[in-house]
Each structure stands twice: as structure tokens, then as C-alpha cells.
């Protein structure tokens, strides 16, 4: 069971949250190749280790934020605003 520190509401149980998957994906220009566009839509980092991801406090303030979480231990390494660049340990 994760205890997630919502930047707005403080520590809450994980069942109040939903994970929105990998964060910091950059939308390419509209004239790129199909390969680049397909990679933007579908390819994912999926690391074994620290993963930078978006979460929403679904059953709380309904705000989105970012967090860095280890995909093996599930330890949350940092929580930071949705518009901020990656924050936390490197992979």
C-alpha cells in the first residue's frame, strides 16, 4: 500500500489516486515521420528502477502532479508539480 503525498492535500492512501503513466512526453511537430509520431504515441520508457510519472488525486482535490517512483520497490523518491521538469534521482 502506497502512502502518496499529494502536493495539495498531504499524505493520503493510494486508493484515492490514479496513475496517468509516463510523464514528460514531448509532442513533436506535426510534420514528422510516421515513425516519430508512432513513437510519440506509443513507445514508453518502462524502466526497471526510477520512473517519472503523472498521478491525479482522483478522490481528493482532483489535481495532477508528478512523482518519481521506483518500479521494483515502489518507493516514492520525489513529488513535484505537473509543469516542473524531472525532479529526483536519475535512472
Amino acid at each position, binding site marked *: 500500500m502506497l502512502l502518496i503525498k499529494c502536493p495539495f492535500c498531504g499524505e493520503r492512501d493510494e486508493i484515492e489516486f490514479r496513475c496517468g503513466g509516463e510523464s514528460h512526453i514531448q509532442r513533436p511537430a506535426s510534420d514528422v515521420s510516421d515513425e516519430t509520431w508512432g513513437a510519440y504515441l506509443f513507445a514508453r520508457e518502462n524502466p526497471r528502477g526510477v520512473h517519472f510519472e503523472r498521478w491525479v488525486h482522483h478522490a481528493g482535490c482532483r489535481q495532477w502532479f508528478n512523482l518519481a517512483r521506483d*518500479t521494483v*520497490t515502489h518507493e516514492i523518491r520525489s513529488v513535484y508539480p505537473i509543469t516542473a521538469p524531472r525532479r529526483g534521482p536519475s535512472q
Partner: protein
Amino acid sequence: MAGYPARATVKEYSAFRLLVEGLRGHTGWKPTWRAVEPKPRYDVVIIGGGGHGLATAYYLAKNHGVRNVAVLERGWIGQGNTGRNTTVIRSNYYYPESIALFDMSVKLYEGLSRELNYNVMFSPRGMVIAGHSRHDMELMNRWAGAMQAYGVDVGLISADEVKRRVPALDTKNKRWPVWGGFTQGRAGTARHDAVVWGYAHAADRLGVDIIQNCEVTDFRKASNGHVVGVETSKGVITADKVVISVAGSSSLLAERAGFRLPITSYALQAFVSEPVKPVLDVVSWSLATGIYVSQSDKGGLVFGGPLDLYNSYAQRGNFPTAIHAVGALAEQYPSFGRVRILRQWAGLVDVVHDSSPILDETPVPGLYINCGWGTGGFKAIPAGGWVMAHHIATGKPHDIGKPFNRKRFENGRLIDEAAGAGIAH
């Protein structure tokens, strides 16, 4: 090769052999497969000794005469997803491409024990899917129509018929009332360990080397970019062709090889109860809660539910999802509520956006990949192995495997079973 012919000519396992061995104190049995150290070179190296990797090796040897093959397994055979799934086999998918692939698999399962001379305990006991609202019934009607058009033995049944086939299911439950159901008669279960052991046994007898405790750490490439081998915990092994068949760890090996995949790894949990007397003779699945349950031959209730919905490489699963699965089972099947759970575990599943597999070459010449089965790889083991072996041996994709290419994520021709067949993720 010590002691084993390259092609098995005599059935090693039979009632007669059992009788003879019984008379001489079971002293004549040989290991089901040989323990070998890797040779320096193979024609084909398969990374991953799960069902799909071993089936690929078996069909390479059996169908295509490619026998200089090694299967490299990081742990033990049966330690990964093949030993962690809930053993359900079915082909009730929505799109014709998927139906062709999964129905091929069910048909191969039907003859598999004889084919491998190994009892995989395939039990086509039938599957009953319960719908809990008018909307569920409309969806099931649509699915059944599509599946029947492609020859899958599915049909709609009434709520009374659901109750008759699954007496333990509370069809008058206030929260999840059963409106009707949807069945596939040829669906069922098999002994999951026996499927990998059987493929390992049969592939070994055709000359395939099965090497356990051998982790692949990197790839060797020629100056033209072509893969020429792998680096492992047991040294460098060269090969003309290499296959990645590692389910939840696919992204990690793809990264070593220099490309990315449309895969996210999640934990999928499963549970088994203490053994009880026979209470359930079909596979029962609820559309509302996503809980599916069957009873093993030992009497344990084997059940599972939805994915743990955040990236994970932890083979244990998270508590909230476990509580959902157990709670839903206890509510929908009240008599199961007092049964104690023996074990809970998780496997790492490789989920793709359209919930359909990837059976293809990779950007690295000579390197192939079989991945993306997500929560449903066990049922597809024979077909996955068959079409990959064809692709590797002939250099051309098998007709049934062709739609499951990587290009679909560029040209948009997805096979969207996530939406089509109501796969719950």
C-alpha cells in the same frame, strides 16, 4: 546429447512404461530434459524459457528441422509467468485477426498432450461470462455475433442457465445481479507447469539445449548492425538469429539492443485457496468486477482480477488490488467467502496499447521479438511458438502472425482488443 537420440522414436511416457517402471521400482526414468552447459554457437538462441520461448524452440525443431537451438532462462523453467498465470485457455476475442490466432492456439492445445507425449491436463470445461446490466448484455450480444461469424463456439445464455452452470454464483446479488451470460464451450484450463515442462521435454528430445540460470546481459552485433550473439552470465554465445521472448522484461532487453517498445510492465495478481470438494466445473468470469475463477484438479479455487494499474517490476502485487479481487469473489460467490487463501503472487505482464501481441522482427537485423501478450499469454503459447518459429525459419511472417507486426504503431492499423473484447485494462 548423452544418452538421447536426436529424434525421439519411442514414446517415453505411456501406461506400459508406467507399468514396467512400477515393477522395477521406478529406477529407469530419465530427467525430463537434460541439464547442459551452453555450446559456443547456435543457429538460433531464444531468450526466455517460458511457454512461448520453449514452444518456439520446439516448433523450430519439429516443423522446420532447425535443431541447433538454445533456450536461455534467467531462473528456472516454470518460475516466471508460465507458472504464475491462472491457466485459462479461450479464444473468444473480437477481431478476425485475434480469433484466427487464439483459435489456432486452442486447437493446438486440444492435441498438445499427444503431440508432446506429456500430459498437460488440458480440460476444455467451458467458460461462463456473467453480464450484470442491460449494457453488459448488449456488449456480449455484439461480441457473440462477431465471434460466431468467424466460427468460434460462443453463445448467449439466460440468467437461469448461468445459475445452473455456476451454482456458487449469487445471480440475485443486489449489487451485481446477473442478467445473463456468454459462453465458450471449448474454453478451459491446463496445468501451466506441465505446458512448459512438456515443451521442454519434447524440444530437448529433438536436440534443443535448455539452459537454466543463464541471464542474458547484452547483445553482440557485427559492424553492419546484425546481431551475432548474446552475452550471458555463462559467457558469450554466438548465434545467427536471436529471439526475445521475455514478457514483462521485454523493454529491458529492447533497450540493451537499442530500440524502444510500446510496452508497459504491470503486475497481475493471482490467488489460490485451500483445496475444497468440487464446487465449480467451468471457468467463471464476471464482466462487472473482472474476477475470474476456476477450480484446479487439486480442489483449490484459482482466481484473479484486474491489473495493478501502475508500472511495476515487483512480482508481488499491491494490497488494494488484492482486496478488490478477494472482496469481489466473496461477494459474488458467498459460499467462497469463508474459504481460506493459501497463496497470492503476481506475474509481470507486458501490456500494449491495443492489448494485442507483437510477433515480429526488430530494428536490429537477426533479432526477433515475441511480446505484448499482456494478461493473456498462457492461452496463446502453442500459436505464439508456431508463428514465431515459422517467421524465424522461413524469414517471412506466418499468415496468422502477420497482422501482429510492429508497424501497426506507425500506420495505425491497431487490433484494438482492449476496446473490442472488453479486456479490462
